[in-house]
């Protein structure tokens, strides 16, 4: 009449878990942890995310090449911002040295894919599936090397140490001319080639911009999903515990050193990959670009987008990247602002002021960034007809 199996498991909790069927129309009723932790746990999220991805892909045929180039750059920056968000947002370790790791990735990729026997170091491996992981891994290795220093420091001290990295890097890259080509000269960036097919030229898949746009979009989706997945895992929870209070986390049994090293490693991997990809669009790397300004820009993306959220980092990167073409259009609308750098006020000054202003405004009014604005709007409707 009944199964015999029950006799054996009488000492363990007597309710079978693991089976996961959703109960129709009850989005909050979770019958297993898998449901509770699902990335897209409601139909509404699944549909809206799907639509967003479809829209992003269809933009490659809808937009002009010029806009696609800007967006492709934004996507790469988004990968870098997600990386910074992992170490700064999720794990709470302030890092001003992100530009350093981006640079390592950029030069690893450029050196690997560059032509052998030229002015600068080159190994002639142009296949993207080799140089992209390599760029990430070398940057990650650098991150892991730096991490032990960082694990001993907190807050302001950590910020200063990572700031030092940027200056060290700036000096090394300026002097190491055989790798970087030297300041003001630069070198050719990594060439994206996939199974012998060059991705930065017009081809059967579309124009150069369309192909690069699609490449960056696919990579961004892959990196973003990986980051979301990491954030909901044991590792992600350990990061959050360290961020909220490292001593408390250690007391709970989270090995601090291991997870801080891991956070720096993963974050640097993302930075390295972003660095390798970033310059394939313009095709040219200049060592002066890896300055403190770049680190600050990444910090701005994370802060404006939203700390400790992947979608926030993407939104922040898009916001910062798209701000540029918008401000460039200002002179035609507001005659007082000049497009000429020799006059005051000019677009570039306006742009710098705008960055600063935005960071200040966001920190004062919405510290959770663009994502916070979205959460606010969502909660307004979610709590309808009440306020909480």
């Amino acid at each position, binding site marked *: 009449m009944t199964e015999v199996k029950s006799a054996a498991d*009488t000492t363990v909790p007597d309710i079978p*878990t693991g089976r996961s069927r959703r*109960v129709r*129309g009850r989005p909050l009723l*979770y*019958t297993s942890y898998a449901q*509770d932790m699902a990335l897209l746990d409601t139909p509404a999220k699944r549909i809206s995310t799907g639509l967003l991805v479809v829209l992003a892909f269809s933009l490659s045929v809808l937009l002009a090449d010029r806009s696609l180039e800007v967006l492709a750059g934004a996507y790469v920056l988004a990968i870098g911002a997600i990386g910074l968000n992992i170490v700064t947002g999720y794990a709470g370790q302030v890092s001003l040295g992100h530009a350093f790791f981006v640079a390592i990735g950029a030069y690893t990729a450029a050196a690997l894919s560059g032509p052998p026997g030229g002015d600068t170091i080159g190994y002639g491996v142009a296949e993207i599936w080799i140089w992209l992981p390599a760029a990430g891994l070398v940057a990650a290795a650098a991150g892991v090397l730096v991490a032990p220093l960082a694990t001993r420091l907190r807050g302001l001290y950590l910020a200063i140490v990572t700031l030092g990295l940027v200056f060290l890097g700036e000096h090394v890259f300026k002097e190491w001319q055989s790798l970087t080509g030297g300041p003001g000269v630069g070198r050719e960036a990594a060439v994206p080639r996939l199974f012998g097919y060059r991705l930065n030229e017009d081809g059967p898949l579309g124009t150069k911009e369309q192909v690069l746009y699609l490449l960056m979009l696919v990579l961004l989706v892959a990196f973003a999903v990986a980051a979301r997945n990491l954030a909901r895992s044991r590792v992600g929870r350990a990061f959050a515990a360290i961020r909220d209070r490292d001593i408390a986390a250690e007391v709970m049994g989270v090995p601090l050193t291991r997870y801080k090293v891991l956070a720096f490693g993963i974050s640097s991997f993302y930075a390295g990959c972003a660095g390798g990809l970033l310059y394939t669009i313009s095709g040219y790397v200049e060592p002066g670009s890896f300055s403190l300004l770049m680190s600050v820009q990444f910090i701005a993306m994370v802060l404006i987008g939203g700390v400790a959220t992947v979608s926030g980092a993407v939104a922040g990167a898009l916001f910062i990247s798209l701000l540029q073409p918008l401000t460039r259009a200002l002179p035609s609308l507001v005659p007082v602002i000049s497009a000429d750098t020799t006059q005051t006020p000019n677009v570039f000054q306006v742009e710098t002021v705008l960055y600063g202003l935005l960071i200040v405004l966001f920190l004062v009014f919405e510290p959770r960034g663009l994502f916070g604005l979205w959460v606010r709007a969502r909660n307004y409707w979610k709590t309808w*007809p*009440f306020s909480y």
Partner: protein
Amino acid sequence: MTATIGERDVSGETGITTTIVTRVRDRALATPEGVALRNKDLGIWQEVTWAAYWDRAELVAHALLALGVEPGDRIAVHSENRPEWLYADLGTVAARGVTVGLYPTNPAAEVAYLLADSGSKILIAEDQEQLDKALAVADECPDLRHIVYLEPRGIRGRYDDPRLMSWPELLALGAGHRAEHPDAVDRRIAAATPGDVMTLIYTSGTTGPPKGVMLTVGNVEFAVEVLVTGGGFTSPPPSERDLALSYLPLCHVAERAFTVWFNAAAGVQVNFAESIDTIQANLREVQPTILFGVPRIWEKVLAQVNIKQDSATPVKRLITRFWLRRADRIGDTLVRTGGRHTAGTRLLYAAGWVFCYRSLRERLGMRRVRYAASGAAPIAPDVLKFYMGIGIAMHEVYGMSENTAVATANRPGRVRLGTVGEPHPGVELKIDEATGEIMTRHPGTFAGYWGKSRATADVLDPDGWLHTGDVGELVDGTHVRITDRMKDIIITAGGKNIAPSEIENALKASPYVKEAVVIGDQRPHLVALIGIEPDTVGEWARRRGITYTTYRDLSEKPETRELVQGVVDEVNARFARVEQVKRFAFLPKELDHEDGELTATQKVKRSAIAKLFEDLVEGMYAR
């Protein structure tokens, strides 16, 4: 209208008496993988299939046989609602034992009384708290031989009483017994007769010590046929697709019916709330389709709506207020039509659904409620009207332990507010002409009070009529309106008969009033003891910038007195002069079961209150 228990309960082919046990066993055979129960543990609603449910129940039955339980032996369960409660109940009935439910809030003294009065052989205690109560009074319960505990925390390794046994040990014992005597339980089930007493349901005891109501297999089967499979409450009848939330004490007949019997007979999926404090959250998660509540719950939810609405942002407040006023109008119309929508209300409701009602019901966890019922105590019609207005099919129902909760119900589409509805089919109901007492007769009438034959004779006529102790009248010849409990009727010094519960419920319909006790027997006029609702009044005080420290301090604020005076004046306006509350005093504390002011079902013990707060009452008359 003759009783046909024999024919009804014996299924044609097998000759085995149908009980809730055979019903669950049949479900386990027909749909072994269907979901029977869900229990929220470690943040997850863990599912129990019918096969697993029956397996546990059968193991418990085997274990009881192994412990020497004979037909008619009493097994007490002292636990919050959880699957083990049902396993124990089913296992007991399968072993032809008698389940005795104890309220989790019962203090040790009452536990002693209940265990001794019922003569329970085995006690299933939930945790250390309940176990300690039992051990403290074990000397007064000579029949108690075994105590099984469900939660080992704090018990394992610390207690060495030889009577103790953990739940896994009990199941292991059952597994061993099953291996040796695989058909022992089946033989017991086959031997069951409709006359077997299957449970003792103790009355709440507002006046004297609780009495154990003996319900037989035949009683419960009649109730199941009328209420569940016959669709005595819901229309269409409940099915496997329905979800219920189990949160009221299972030792009460109403919750037993809505949890155990609805589940066994109709396959309704039962979800156990984490505790009485998490109902709001659990309701939102489960979104049950069938929801039973006591007036206290419905009043509390309504008060929550008012608080949250008042503290919402201006735009939301404006829109919600607008649509709640419309809901009031819809409610008025529904009250007139007996719960059937007119074209006008349908249109208005559809518009309001978009702006307010859908999300409001979602927030309350009642989005998918297709049948809601209030019972077990009188409720103010205004509260019911609110729920009808926002689109929840709300019905007041009436029944008591002594008639297996089968008496009257408002039927969908034939609701008459202020009444408890029409008698179920198969129920004879009459109103005593001299006293106005409601009397019922049907196969669900209980077998008697356990060990109290004189008390039984007091309420049960030789010809089978049950004296309910409620005074009522017929409205339009179909619906029953209950005036009050017979013994609560107040006769003022002027000789006027007054039903206090009507006035009390009108007062309690205000979100600011939690308890109201109207007093005036043999007095020149009525006075009331009023307990404020600390949540709502606290919120009200906070918004007005009135600082307070304790419950008593808040009660004694002149502003609070003004607030409640307003409520009292409003209620007084609706009653005749003699029925008006002339003075009121605040209860200095929140009433509590532990202090003997409330029964386990949160009903006020009038006599205890009158004695405890005598000085307050006298003070009101002295002025």
